[in-house]
């Protein structure tokens, strides 16, 4: 290690004012979250309600849907790179075989498409988890409450909106906050997605095409340990990330508790 020099807050000033990659990585991860959190919450909840009504097959489907969540994220990144590869990927071959498109689409080579693939990947990996948590929450709703509502002549949608949803609010809050915290720390899957493709020659583009999928942790890893060994800047990135996470968690907590007061 070279000699040390005290530079005050220079690294922090750097990342917050004139470092394009830091904000870009925060923006990318925020985009991923905007892309998947609302959808996965709605779908997870709906599937949980459906599965709750067929208790005979609950365990089986719960287990099968959780398989992606249990799998090593590294493996998921590679599996998706197999599926979405440009020249030999499964999806392109299927689409060509069924004459949907004349030529393969470069899913992982175009910024916007690559982002969608990452969103699909997170979605695929986590849906079973959301389903499981909501199922557990549904089990916690007292059965008398639903029965009383039925006796009083409430319709199914009424029960859903006036009993089920309010009861599940703390769980939704938990899921949103943990998704934001976990989402900002995304690294394994995109990192492997752009390194293990079928046409890959071992070369990896940091952050995917146009750095459209550069996550903050990836940028941190790349700065501190990979392309460069700027430990100071790396530390600043990680603290910057922490501050962003803190702001977003407090923000989402405020939104939810604000709703409750009404």
């Amino acid at each position, binding site marked *: 290690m070279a000699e040390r020099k005290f530079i005050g807050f220079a690294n922090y000033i750097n990342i917050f004012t004139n470092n394009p990659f830091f904000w870009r990585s925060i923006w990318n991860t925020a985009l991923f979250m905007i892309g998947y959190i609302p959808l996965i919450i709605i779908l997870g909840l709906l*599937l949980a309600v*459906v*599965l709750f*009504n*067929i208790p005979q*097959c609950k*365990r089986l*489907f719960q*287990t*099968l*849907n*959780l*398989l*992606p969540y*249990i*799998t*090593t*994220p*590294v*493996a998921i990144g*590679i*599996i*998706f790179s*197999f599926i979405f590869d440009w020249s030999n990927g*499964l999806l392109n*071959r299927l689409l060509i075989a069924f004459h949907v498109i004349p030529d393969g689409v470069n899913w992982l080579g175009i910024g916007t498409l690559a982002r969608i693939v990452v969103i699909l990947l997170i979605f*695929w990996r986590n*849906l079973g*988890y959301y389903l*499981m*948590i909501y199922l*557990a929450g549904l089990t*916690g709703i007292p059965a008398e409450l639903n029965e009383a509502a039925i006796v009083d002549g409430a319709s199914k949608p009424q029960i859903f909106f006036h009993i089920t949803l309010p009861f599940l609010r703390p*769980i939704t809050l*938990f*899921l949103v906050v*943990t998704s934001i*915290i976990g989402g*900002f*720390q995304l*690294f*394994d899957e995109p990192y*492997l997605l752009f*390194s*293990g493709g*079928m046409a*890959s020659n*071992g070369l990896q583009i940091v952050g995917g095409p146009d750095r459209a999928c550069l996550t903050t942790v990836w940028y*941190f*890893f790349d700065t*501190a*340990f990979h392309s460069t060994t700027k*430990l100071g800047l*790396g*530390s600043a990135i*990680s603290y910057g*990330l*922490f501050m962003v*996470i*803190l702001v977003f968690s407090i923000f989402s907590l405020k939104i939810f508790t604000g709703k409750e007061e009404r």
Partner: protein
Amino acid sequence: MKKVLYLIPIVLFTLISVLPFYVIIMMATHSTAEIFSGLVIKPGNYFLENMKTIFINKFQYCYLNSVIVSVVSTVVSVLISALTGFALSKYRFKLKKFFFLFILATMMIPGQIGMIGYVMEMKAMALSNTLMPLILVWCSNAFGVFFMTQFIGETVPDEVIESARLDGCGEFGIFTRIVLPFSKPAMATLATLIFLWSWNNFLLPLVTVYNKELYTIPLGIQALQNTYVVDFGARGAGLAFAVVPILILFCLGSKNFIKGLTAGAVKG
């Protein structure tokens, strides 16, 4: 009839969940030429050849390393969490509240913040490029301490501890004979979670382990991609070999796993 209608969306999403695993297993049973010549839907007979290829490259050692790291981490972490949880819930001492809040606060901080410091610390202790950094990181598991403190505080009755003390049981005896049996379910839950987290950990081994003999499964999977750039059969076999046994294990113990995974969410 209505039930069947209910089943349709569930079955659809379950298929989507499972399909990629099917693809990988099918890839593992074909040679690369077969994979490239068409869609592989039925299992082939090239599985043993593919396995031979990855075993030449000593991929099985990753398994051994991962098992060592995960098992030791789990045992050590659960024990330390239980001990700390016992102290924080059943003893009165100065600054107890401060310690508890401090541990809670560290739970909120993302792991990457400490990483640079941790790597330098391991270097200073001459532990880098061993498996120790991957185990030691679980010794101070804030979530585990919080979880055990809550559980022991709620379930172990003070009277039982008091009467054991009157009967002449030592403090450590109280821990091993009373607290541990009482908190078995919580320990099982915590063990499940820590095993899963340490098994899947990627970033930390990536920056602390350089030696190929010490690679854990996630590093091994990554290395496999770079070693067999063109041999997709072997890459598929490696992935299947790394992923499928854990999934089978999960299916067998899914009841406990699901209990463990939901424990933190639904209670908190």
